């Protein structure tokens, strides 16, 4: 599988276990980006010449592919800078309809991008953030969700898959329950889209956000899915070129969906590549991707759990992530030694500080596996972790 990703040709010894931060990009996606710059290089929508018309057609083809891939209508697919941008847009769109005292349910499991936009609204307009109590292992359960859901709940903003622990939240049931009290749902799918089949019709969510760069696609591009009926009622959060219909000195009307939410020149090359990304994932099969990621992760986990020095924070979960530390060793020290041995993992709080406070640790080490990893990556990783433990013992870091 690695042969499909040019980066591994130039970095033959790289053991890349940081795909939850950003995945590698296959040749097919890179070719699509180059195709735009080499053969089009023009703006979309505005031109009446063939090149512009053809580029516009390609952009709309990508949008249609994405819509079909996630079970949505093309009008419901808004291109953004990434999941963080999408999640911020949701909060800004809802700002006008939320009132002081309205409750927004979120959790300590969230990536900062999921809850900070609403934390800001708490300060700005006096909404109230309410946190779902987490289980001891950090999981969101339906029972705990029900404890905070009420008629005051106006928005539910939760993560589909945790970026630290890899837990999958039962968002379908959460969305159903939320709609019973009339709340709007916004799901952070940044870690779900690289691993799960997404079906907006089945989930029935009002908003769903994800990024392409974590799913073998280009950087700088994300999707905000929004239900058509809802998007039609909401105002754009950015104004400027292309999103308007008619402009006078004193007034503006907006274009139809989804264009009223896409201001200025969009990242056209990346949108070209997004279509290629969907083709690529579909050819391999998202189920195969998830199965292989979990298989490799569990191979590594099984061996790590045999080491007394290792503490794993998400050992019981079917996930592609191992969140761990060497007991008594700061994660930054561990990943430095791993990096010297060409093993790329992540240390820190992974933009999820409240979760680390909940787990009562200052930082964790995250090894995230993806389908292009192989058993050789697993054994090199384990080998270096064991050597690192010995090294830390030799220098007196641990007993």
């Amino acid at each position, binding site marked *: 599988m690695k042969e499909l990703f040019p980066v591994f040709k130039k970095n033959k010894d790289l053991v890349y276990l940081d795909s939850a931060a950003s995945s590698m990009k296959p040749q097919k996606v890179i070719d699509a980006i180059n195709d735009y710059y080499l053969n089009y290089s023009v703006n979309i929508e505005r031109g009446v010449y063939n090149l512009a018309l053809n580029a516009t057609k390609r952009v709309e083809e990508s949008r249609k592919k994405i819509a079909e891939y996630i079970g949505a209508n093309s009008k419901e697919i808004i291109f953004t800078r990434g999941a963080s941008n999408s999640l911020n847009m949701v909060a800004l769109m809802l700002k006008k309809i939320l009132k002081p005292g309205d409750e927004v349910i979120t959790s300590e499991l969230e990536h900062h991008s999921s809850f900070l936009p609403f934390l800001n609204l708490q300060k700005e307009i006096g909404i109230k953030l309410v946190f779902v109590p987490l289980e001891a292992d950090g999981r969101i359960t339906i029972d705990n969700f029900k404890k905070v859901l009420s008629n005051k709940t106006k928005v539910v903003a939760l993560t589909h898959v945790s970026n630290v622990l890899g837990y999958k939240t039962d968002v379908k049931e959460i969305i159903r329950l939320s709609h019973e009290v009339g709340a709007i749902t916004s799901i952070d799918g940044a870690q779900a889209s690289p691993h799960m089949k997404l079906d907006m019709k089945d989930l029935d969510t009002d908003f769903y956000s994800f990024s392409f760069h974590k799913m073998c696609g280009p950087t700088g591009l994300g999707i905000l899915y929004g239900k058509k009926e809802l998007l039609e009622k909401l105002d754009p959060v950015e104004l400027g070129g292309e999103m308007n219909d008619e402009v006078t000195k004193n007034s503006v009307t907006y274009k139809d969906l989804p264009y009223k939410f896409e201001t200025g020149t969009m990242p056209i090359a990346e949108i070209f590549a997004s279509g290629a990304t969907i083709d690529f994932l579909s050819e391999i099969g998202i189920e195969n991707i998830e199965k292989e990621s979990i298989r490799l992760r569990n191979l590594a986990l099984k061996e790590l759990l045999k080491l007394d020095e290792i503490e794993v924070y998400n050992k019981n979960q079917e996930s592609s992530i191992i969140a761990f530390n060497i007991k008594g060793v700061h994660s930054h020290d561990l990943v*430095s030694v791993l990096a010297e041995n060409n093993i790329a993992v992540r240390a*820190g709080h992974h933009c999820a500080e409240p979760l680390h406070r909940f787990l009562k640790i*200052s930082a964790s080490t995250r090894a995230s596996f993806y389908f292009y990893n192989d058993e050789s990556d697993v054994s090199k990783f384990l080998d270096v972790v064991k050597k690192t433990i010995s090294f830390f013992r030799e220098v007196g870091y641990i007993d």
Partner: protein
Amino acid sequence: MDHYRNPRNKGLTNSSTYVKCHLKNPSCGDMIDVESLVENGIIKDIRHDGEGCSICCASASIMSEVVKGMTVEDAKKLLENYLKMVSNQEYDESIDFDELQVFDGVKDLPARVRCASISSQALLSTLTSEDK
């Protein structure tokens, strides 16, 4: 390692006679507080507390020992040049960094420069705010 496992001058006084600075390393979440007590231009005491990696904690501990007793002026000069040394910039090599010299190697580890710098930056900040 000794300074990491047995840090010197650790624990804050939270006394109003000390000047305090809180800094954070956003990349890894390390946090450190540094307090300094200055009397007649001499650094009488330094306290530090926080959570961090070995480089972060050990550099705070060593720094507190090296700088205690120095004049504010000398300490500032030492810290400014130390920060240049760890970030691979030109610095005054005539300065005696004492035990802090061990962090010279950090310049070859760009990802760890902030770890070795954070406590010194915090201390410098307390000394600078005392000028005002």
